[in-house]
């Protein structure tokens, strides 16, 4: 049912675009670059926006960044006034912005939601949902360890006590299930390299024998690696981070033994959402529902594909 309506909408959109030869406007609303991952989001949004405008003369992509939910709500209004046909949004706080998004959608605008979803994440809010796979991120790391070191003693550094973090932990636990992998300890590192350094130092004091560190975030991996290097301990075989920052991808690419793999939670997913939206509006393929970005395991073999040396992240 929904697809039919959507198809009709698509048809009319493409009709408009052929009739007036120019006008498909896509608004992109994303958080301001306040830490590594969001700065990657900003980078990739702009990168894809330019690519899209380069390949289609009649498509315009407007990227707006906002530091907090209130200013993002204002940004949505501004975009609406400029007359957008589609909105790609990565909300700073999904539940705070759900009404503003629904308002846009009620005008008939195509809405693609990225990464962060409100609690009522259904088709009343968005047409398309492009999500990273937090569960998968944990699971991929867990499976890798279970497969390569089935008897490993692992220390875990968590992020912050929020749902995303919990999903990753659940995924990890599922990944190691059935193996002899033992989790020695889990502590919070606040997705911050200084805190991760501190936690890792204390782990090294507390445990004589650690095989693997899973810190599920590339920023924290920086602090973890320094702490290990300082201790001159050789019992730790490797560290698994997550997200796909250029520095860590580079290490994987170079075959660094301490960083054999990385798990993607790519800020580039915003670009994917923009591309899918354009494709959908152009009528190239039907686009709707939920699209989950794979938590791809980055290995030395495929690392080059995910390496963006110009990105700030």
């Amino acid at each position: 049912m929904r697809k039919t309506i959507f198809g009709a909408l698509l048809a009319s959109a493409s009709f408009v675009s052929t009739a007036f030869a120019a006008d498909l406007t896509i608004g992109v609303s994303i958080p301001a670059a306040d830490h590594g991952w969001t700065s990657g989001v900003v980078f990739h949004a702009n990168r894809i926006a330019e690519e899209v405008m380069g390949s289609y003369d009649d498509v315009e992509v407007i990227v707006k960044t906002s530091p907090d939910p209130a200013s993002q709500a204002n940004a949505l209004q501004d975009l609406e006034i400029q007359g957008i046909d589609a909105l790609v949004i990565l909300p700073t706080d999904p539940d705070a912005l759900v009404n503003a998004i629904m308002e846009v959608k009620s005008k008939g605008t195509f809405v693609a939601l990225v990464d962060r979803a409100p609690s009522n994440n259904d088709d009343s809010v968005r047409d398309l949902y492009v999500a990273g796979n937090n569960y998968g991120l944990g699971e991929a790391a867990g499976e890798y360890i279970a497969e390569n070191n089935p008897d490993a003693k692992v220390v875990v550094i968590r992020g912050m006590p929020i749902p995303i973090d919990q999903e990753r932990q659940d995924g990890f636990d599922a990944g190691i299930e059935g193996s002899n992998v033992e989790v020695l300890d889990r502590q919070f590192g606040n997705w911050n390299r200084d805190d991760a350094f501190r936690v890792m130092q204390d782990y090294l004091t507390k445990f004589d024998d650690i095989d693997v560190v899973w810190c599920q975030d590339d920023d924290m991996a920086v602090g973890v690696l320094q702490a290990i290097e300082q201790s001159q301990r050789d019992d730790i075989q490797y560290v698994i981070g997550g997200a796909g920052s250029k520095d860590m991808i580079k290490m994987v690419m170079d075959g660094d033994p301490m960083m054999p793999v990385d798990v993607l939670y790519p800020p580039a997913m915003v670009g994917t959402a923009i591309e899918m939206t354009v494709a959908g509006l152009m009528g190239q393929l039907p686009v709707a529902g939920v699209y989950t970005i794979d938590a791809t395991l980055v290995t030395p073999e495929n690392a080059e594909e995910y390496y963006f040396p110009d990105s700030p992240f």
Partner: protein
Amino acid sequence: MSTQTSPLTSIRRTLSSVDMRAVAPFIALIVLIIAGAMVNPRFVGLDNLANVATRCAFIATIAVGATFVISSGDLDLSVGSMVAFVASVMILFMNTQVFASPLMMVLTAVLLAMALGALCGLFNGVLTTKGQLEPFIVTLGTMGIFRGLTTWLSQGGAITLQAQEQQALYREVYFGRFFGVPWPILITLAVALLGSLLMYRTRFGRHVVAVGSNREVARHSGINVSRVRLYAFMIQGLTVAVAVILYVPRLGSTSSTTGTMWELQAITAVVIGGTALKGGSGRVWGSIAGAFILELVGNIMLLSNFISEYLLLAIQGTIIILAMLVQRSLTRRA
């Protein structure tokens, strides 16, 4: 009513002649170390204690500067952002590699950081004294400014030291040891020693305390109140620079989240150390003890096997309040 001195009263008299306020933080420190040893015997290992002391070097150094600002009756909330800003500029400069020699680069970068730190402090000080604004508001503003500039410089991402030779050379400042003692500990002690000489043995130090305890008395005593406050802010900036010089070699990288909440940690360390928030008493060594206590609490929590990671913050808060209560009761008795 004769005042014969029994041995007991003479002991009590010696005790009461010791300034409990000055000693209390060190007593708290000892209690904490004993508690830590009971939680996990590895806690008292030299390596662990050296780790913790090295880690608290940043906050401890900043706290020495904060002791001056708070003693003179002001407050600086911008230090955390200042760390991020100065560190970012320092790394960006090192990445330019304008000099061929890595040693030359590192030395110039160190000088640059000192100058920039002093300048940031001067900025805070001028706005507070010449602008006659509340230090709380001024430094809340500059906290945003320094943080924003850092985010802009890094475009939201990380700023990482690229030159491997510089990194290899400079790394020693954090990870190296001198006669077995890590450099950051030595540098922190040196900063504290300088700070205590300045606070207790110079005219300026006396003036800081006078300005902090009563500005009118200070003015009537011919003290240039504005200048003393300004210098205190600059000293704060310089200690931030020293913290940066220790911080950069550790990870060789900064981001817009570097140094967040450090201002609160520094202020907490100063207060635990026995300096009154309303000004007028400076305890340089107390602040060092305070910074060490803060870091120890986290360390003990992590080394324990029975405390849920979810409760860490709550227990940390409780211990800080307990430490203050113990200190207060000791002070009252004296």
